[in-house]
Each structure stands twice: as C-alpha cells, then as structure tokens.
C-alpha cells in the first residue's frame, strides 16, 4: 500500500498564505482557458494575478520568468493543449 503516514511538520509546510491566490488564479485560468489556448497553443503557461505571466516550451523556462517578474514562488502552471490529444502508452525497452 503506497499511502504513507503524514508527518505533522510536513503538513504545516504544505499550507501557506499563497494558497488563496493560487486557487483564485486557477479559477481564472479555467474560466479563460479558451483564450489562453488561442494565444499560447501547446505551450506551458504560468498564471499570476489573473493573467498569463509567462509562456514557453518548457516548465523550467516559464517558472524562471514568472518568478523573476513577480517574486512569487507559487503559481498555477497549465499546458495549453490545443486540439484532441490522446497520450497513448507503449514502452519500448
């Protein structure tokens, strides 16, 4: 069974004042996702203060830009998926 016991100090670390802003930005992204996909198709986007603050081909790139622009450590990151995509699994070893 892979579910482990939660240590108290880890639980406290996971809650932070940025929590509310993170969820407000998440809600905004969901409500405006069509516009986000139109402007940034198949790119990673970071959302801060209810706008796309960074977009790019890699998560590392947009994290860096978003942190430099805003000083924020936490922000929702989405993949602006354009079109129907099916991520099929077949591993070749």
């Amino acid at each position: 069974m892979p579910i482990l016991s939660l240590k108290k100090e880890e639980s406290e670390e996971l809650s932070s004042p940025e929590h509310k802003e993170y969820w407000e930005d998440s809600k905004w992204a969901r409500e405006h996702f069509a516009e986000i996909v139109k402007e940034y198709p198949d790119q990673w986007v970071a959302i801060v203060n209810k706008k796309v603050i960074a977009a790019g081909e890699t998560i590392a790139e947009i994290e860096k830009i978003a942190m430099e622009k805003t000083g924020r450590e936490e922000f929702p990151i989405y993949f602006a998926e354009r079109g129907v995509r099916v991520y099929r699994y077949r591993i070749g070893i």
Partner: protein
Amino acid sequence: MSIDIGLEFETHIDLDFLGQGVTIRLIRLIASLRLQTNDGWTRRYKAFIDTGNPLSIIPNSIWNKAKINWLLPHKSELSGIGPGKVSGRLGEIVLVLFDERVDSPPIKAKAFLLDDDKVPLLLGFEDILTELKLACDYRTKTAYLQIPLP
C-alpha cells in the same frame, strides 16, 4: 476513514473543429500536487487524471527537482499518436495531492520520468488510481479522489 481531494474540470472548445462547424469540448480532469524533494516539497503542479494511462508520466522540469528512487538503470521510449517518441526512465516518487481545503497523506507511486517537457504531467493507474477511488460527474462539475487515511 478517508478524505476526498477535490479535482477541477478544465473545459474549452476545440477551435479546429469549431472552424469546421462542429463543437467538440476538450475536457480535462485536473489534480493539484507536490512532489517530495530531498529537503521538502516542490511547488504546486497541475496534473491530468488519465484513466487511459497505466502509468503516471512526469515532465523533466518537474521531476528533476524531486527525490527519485530509480527502478530501472536504463531509459525507455514511449510512443504517442502520430510520429515521434519521447524517452525517459522508470522511477518512484512521493507526492501529495491537495485541494483548497485539505492535503492528502504522502503517496508513493511509480512513474515514467521524461527527458523533456513534451507531455504534461499525467496521473495514471499504477499506485494512484489502483489505490484511490475516483469519482467523476461532469454534469454537476463534481470530481474527487478518495484517499484512505493510514
């Protein structure tokens, strides 16, 4: 005893089909999570719940900050629809899921850890949907993962 971690629906219209007069909704069911690192946890990331994937898949920019237990010493390849492949390695990570109200206990899961960011973070069956109950009702916009407490 268990806790329910709320999931988000993200819906938008496929623009290519719309241009041809057909409305197709692109719907994704999204979880929020952090991965365990050597000295704490990563930032929050969004993940697609993917019942079509036997195994979770994690992009490079996310897993390279995490604490990894490598399960195999060599790389593998993953094929998708159309030409091209992505490559990565099989490992085990620890994650927590969360919603606006609550965090889950840490969950250990096997995952395919990609060499790049070409595929979003996907939560598949092994160690996630095999252990947690998924409830999903798009009509009422209600979805959650039910996690048994240790």
